[in-house]
């Protein structure tokens, strides 16, 4: 099998592991619509 296909499979597996290990949504994590004063500006990274 092409090594690049193996790398692709490994990367996708890493993403799958991250999804399983990632925190589930909760009220504690939820952002309010009005960010507190001094909050960083919106960014697509967030």
């Amino acid at each position, binding site marked *: 099998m092409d090594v690049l296909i193996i790398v692709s499979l490994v*990367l996708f597996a890493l993403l799958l592991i991250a999804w399983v290990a*990632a925190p589930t949504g909760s009220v504690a994590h939820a952002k309010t619509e*009005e960010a507190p004063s001094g909050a960083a*500006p919106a960014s*697509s*990274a967030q």
Partner: protein
Amino acid sequence: MDAINGADTAWIMVSAALVMLMTPGLALFYGGMVREKNVLSTIMHSFFILALVSVQWALWGYTLAFGPSQGGIIGGLNWIGLNGVGLEPNTDYAGTIPHQAFMIYQMMFAVITPALISGAFAERKRFKAFVIFSLLWATLVYAPVAHWVWAVGGWIRGLGALDFAGGTVVHITSGVSALVCALVLGKRLGYGKEPMQPHNATLTILGTALLWFGWFGFNAGSALGSGGLAVSAFVTTHLAAAMAALTWMTASWIRHKQPSVLGAAAGAVAGLVGITPAAGFVTPSSALIIGFLAGLGCFIAVEMVVRGRVDDSLDVFGVHGVGGIIGAIATGIFATKTVNPAGADGMLYGNPGLVVTQIIAVVVVALYAAGVTFVLLKIIDATIGIRVTSEEETLGLDASQHGEVAYQS
């Protein structure tokens, strides 16, 4: 003379329409991310450029970009006003479609490139300054760089650098110029002190969908025909976008504890940017890897720009500048002549020199775009003024620049 092929011509016309749709898509993508008081002005940036650069391209942009080369630096004025650009094929560029089809397809690239920059100066640039800047930038940055990289006789093309659909010509030029714009204009009033949340994320997602859809014309259309190469570019484009969307969303999930919808959208765009220079030169598995690299790399870049307190309002440098650089270098690594015999083999296929060539192209184009953009901004600022007054900025650009508001409350 080659015969015109109906299928090729139809595909390029459809592709031109697809790429055209990307600019209004970009308007929605950006429009959703700004505050409510600036949505119309932000949409206007893209919409106005669609009209402005279309006329500029017909009058002098096309001939400067693709006209007979003057020493590899710029095209001659032979085709000014589209003089001599007719319905017979131009075999230098596309031997099976009318010359006008090639011209109008390239026009759509010239349109969207300065529109991309507008995300960096959203919410604070005078409309008059924006108009002058966009016209000068399209003439003095886009046209020469397009000539260097794509035109027959262009000096970067002569080096052997690869750029299938505009990673260097479109995304590096616009991304780097956006960073210069953000630095020269300075931050928005209240940046870092008050919330500047996207006012309508659904607009942004709709814009992303239109961009993704249009990108099939952008990349697969760059095959300039309707055969296997177009199919290959179509497949790699979609795979890279998908992989990058997953990667950015995952990175934001880990970093910020929740999977961001806007992050998935930005990731898709990052993947589309990353695959753009490589789309017609790489295999599907390479496209997946490039998507991963673009998604992760652009996410990190955007985080760093925000942390550096640079107000690149809508992440143009992080997504298009860095995504374009990642894609250009990745092309040097993953390109293979098994996909496109007219291309070149990259590092993984025994030709490490292509990476060096790609890096040279990236550095030269980035420095040129940054330098010219800086000079243009300084000249415009010294003459007509580049930034709205603080009162106008507080009121919002929709009301202060256009006398209209997006939403009636």
